[in-house]
């Protein structure tokens, strides 16, 4: 639907920039691991291995990056997304530098068994492929599809193969946020897929505040919910925009305030130690659903107070995030809870319209003097499976090794740019298998800040240098580049992110398995009931006194079943 496109477009525009250009960070903490793993990209010849090895355990040392001699074929399913361009052609895909490198450096001939255009078509293609029991040799699937595949014997148990062939660097990246990614691909003790990891921490919530308004009104950066209340009160009452009219509000909020992104309330819930939509471990060791825990009552009461006093827009419940964000563009709001990329979208729009405006990101506030825990969840982009009929399951691992080495290993800048640099390099969408480092963007921030301190930009990779140059432009007066400072610069959101990480503050969603049966059927209704009740409470149409009734209702709607299944999953995992 159009509106959705628009809504997410804006939101993503910014996030995209941040999240997807790649880094070849030469000097980060992966160095040691990387140097052990050898260099796939610069190794045209390697010790020839007995071909046909299929993962049976042998004592002979294995070179994970050895080239196949003779070369082997591997069929794949290709999903064409919008980012791959309007002028995508199959010839182009089959002749991309990725496919050439797989062939020339690894001895793997990638053969597409189908192409599908768009999310929809891909889902259909994979679904009918699985139904007819005929999947490509290597395929990236979703968690749901993996769950279905787990009931069949169509795919390899990758456990031994992964242990044997994954380079230390690959292993380190995939287990960077603990074993959750691997666990989420493990069914009945079998590792059925190699998880293509993505950053979880980049989804965390931040407190964005108009620093210029704080300064103007002589206020300090709020650290607690009470201080935040005073700040919002002042923003609404004391005419921070100086137009003589009482037309500003404190908090920017959209109707779907439990969805991470822009103008959400997750940060406020987290401030009160409440974790809506997340599964947290209760006192008895069982997993419980955050939306139904009593802690949310404090957060709801707080939001209700804000609403009553006009610190939130009267009709926030009718605005999606892009509509809510218009408040920022028109300079009528001073506080926003949202992701680290909010500095690009939508807050850059404030800068465009009001040159003196200055949004800053801080750690979310807390109800007391203990820092709050921002909630995050496991983020796996793709689960890569290998068809049982395929003789070389290690091919998949080698493809991922190739990716990690290129991105995070010792590949030269030149080599990196060939694949992932600016056009004509194809970019990451054209790679067959990949796994991202969780802290890539954080690392970029640290390196950029370091470069500003030392004045030495030689250690920056292409992506980081881009950020650096844009921040320099901003400092020289180009306000259009303020967004880079706001995210990656010395005053950027990643400063707070770094505090989250070093303080080990994240609250990880404890459930990271595939949707359970009851979840598939009930969770949607449950989530809807939750947001309806929350909204009513905030707007004063319902009361927190009915919270227990509300929880009963959730349980009747299936939350009890879902909770039971989640705990069964939790127990089985141990």
């Amino acid at each position, binding site marked *: 639907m159009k509106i959705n496109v628009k809504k*997410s*477009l804006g939101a993503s525009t910014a996030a*995209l920039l941040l999240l997807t250009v790649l880094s070849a960070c030469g000097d980060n903490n992966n160095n040691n691991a990387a140097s052990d793993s050898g260099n796939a990209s610069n190794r045209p010849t390697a010790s020839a291995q007995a071909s046909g090895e299929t993962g049976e355990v042998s004592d002979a040392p294995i070179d994970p990056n050895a080239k196949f001699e003779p070369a082997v074929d591997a069929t794949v399913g290709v999903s064409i997304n919008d980012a791959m361009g*309007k002028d995508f052609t199959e010839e182009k895909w089959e002749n991309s530098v990725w496919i050439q490198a797989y062939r020339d450096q690894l001895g793997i001939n990638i053969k597409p068994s189908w192409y599908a255009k768009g999310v929809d078509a891909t889902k259909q293609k994979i679904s009918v492929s699985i139904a007819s029991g005929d999947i490509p040799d290597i395929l990236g699937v979703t968690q749901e599809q993996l769950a279905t595949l787990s009931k069949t014997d169509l795919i390899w148990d990758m456990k031994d193969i992964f242990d044997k062939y994954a380079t230390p660097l690959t292993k380190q990246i995939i287990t960077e946020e603990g074993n959750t990614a691997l666990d989420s691909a493990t069914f009945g003790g079998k590792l059925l897929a190699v998880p293509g990891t993505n950053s979880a921490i980049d989804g965390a919530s931040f407190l964005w505040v108009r620093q210029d308004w704080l300064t103007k009104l002589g206020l300090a950066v709020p650290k607690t919910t009470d201080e935040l209340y005073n700040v919002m009160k002042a923003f609404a009452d004391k005419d921070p925009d100086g137009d003589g009219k009482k037309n500003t509000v404190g908090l920017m909020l959209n109707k779907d305030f439990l969805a991470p992104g822009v103008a959400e309330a997750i940060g406020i819930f987290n401030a009160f130690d409440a974790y809506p939509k997340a599964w947290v471990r209760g006192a008895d060791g069982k997993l419980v659903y955050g939306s139904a825990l009593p802690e949310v009552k404090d957060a709801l009461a707080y939001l209700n107070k804000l609403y009553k006093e006009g610190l939130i827009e009267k009709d926030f419940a009718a605005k999606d995030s892009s509509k809510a964000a218009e408040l920022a563009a028109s300079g009528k709001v001073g506080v926003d809870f949202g992701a680290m990329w909010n500095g690009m979208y939508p807050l850059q729009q404030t800068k465009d319209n009001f040159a003196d405006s200055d949004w800053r990101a801080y750690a979310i506030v807390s109800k007391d003097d203990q820092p709050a825990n921002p909630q995050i969840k496991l983020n796996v*982009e793709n689960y890569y499976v290998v068809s049982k009929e395929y003789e070389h399951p290690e091919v998949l691992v080698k493809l991922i090794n190739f990716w990690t080495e290129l991105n995070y290993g010792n590949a030269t800048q030149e080599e990196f740019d060939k694949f992932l640099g600016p056009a004509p390099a194809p970019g990451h969408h054209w790679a067959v298998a990949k796994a991202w480092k969780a802290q890539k963007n954080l690392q970029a921030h640290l390196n950029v800040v370091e470069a500003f301190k030392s004045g030495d930009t030689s250690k920056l990779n292409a992506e980081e240098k881009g950020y650096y140059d844009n921040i320099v432009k901003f400092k020289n007066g180009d306000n259009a580049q303020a967004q880079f400072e706001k995210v990656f610069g010395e005053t950027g959101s990643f400063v707070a992110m770094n505090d989250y990480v070093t303080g080990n503050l994240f609250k990880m969603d404890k459930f990271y398995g595939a949707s359970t049966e009851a979840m598939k059927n009930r969770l949607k209704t449950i989530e809807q009931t939750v947001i309806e009740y929350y909204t009513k409470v905030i707007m004063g149409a319902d009361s927190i006194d009915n919270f227990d009734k509300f929880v009963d209702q959730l349980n009747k709607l299936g939350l009890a079943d879902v909770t039971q299944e989640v705990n069964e999953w939790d127990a089985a995992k141990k």
Partner: protein
Amino acid sequence: MIERRTPSRMLFLYGNYVILTLFAITCLFPILHMAAMSLSSNSAVTAGWVTVWPVDFNLDTYKYIVRNQSFLYSAVNSFERLSLGVSLGLALTILAAYPLSKSNLKFRSRTVYSWFFVITMIFNGGLIPTFMVVKETGLMDSIGALVIPSAVNVFNIVLMLNFFRSQPIELEESAQIDGAGAWRTLWSIYLPISKPSLATIALFTIIFHWNAWFDGLIYMNSPTHYPLQTYLRTVIVSHDLSNVNASDFSMIQNISSRTVLAAQLFVSMLPVLCIYPFLQKYFVHGLVLGSVKG
């Protein structure tokens, strides 16, 4: 009979013209709106200035779509599908409808055959089993997957056999007295008088093949083999950008602007819009005769 022109009658007649004109405008407006958008500049469209007349007239979108390989490929596929599908469909319909139009006396197995076909109007195996059969018969990723499984249309057979049956029995009897066999009778007696029905069925088959999109999505292994409507579907559906981590800037630039989409939609309607008015008198006739809606 002479019309009595009472004032209320006059009011009704004029009111009637107005109402019918409004009806017609409602049908025409969205299509004209699309056409106008496709010929306007993007900024005029975004500003909401375009109704049924182009603003900042330009042909950029059309220049773009004639260079757009995917669009062109799929248009070619659609025409290929159309020519194969329609000829195959017509041939099969005629051949099946003719024997079934005979009375039970002349063709005793008729009832068995009829039930054989009718059952398929009610029961079908659903998507997955059909997919498997198409795959097992080796049609995947070929034009065959689009025209062969759907080649026999029972509705069309019923339409056609009702037409055959409405013909005077003497036609056949005189032909047989002349010694003509079943094939000759069908070919030289029945077919020449079947033009209206054939035109109707041809039109329905054209519409079916031109408008089908789902099978293209399921059976084709490559977007270069998509027919036009399947291609359009992939352009129209909402772009799921919820997982922002996995996307990048060029994605936004690549999402078709409204004007380009409008142009693609408009061009895709054109062939059908050009054909049906000329077949109007046939399908009106054929429909009334069959009294069965396609």
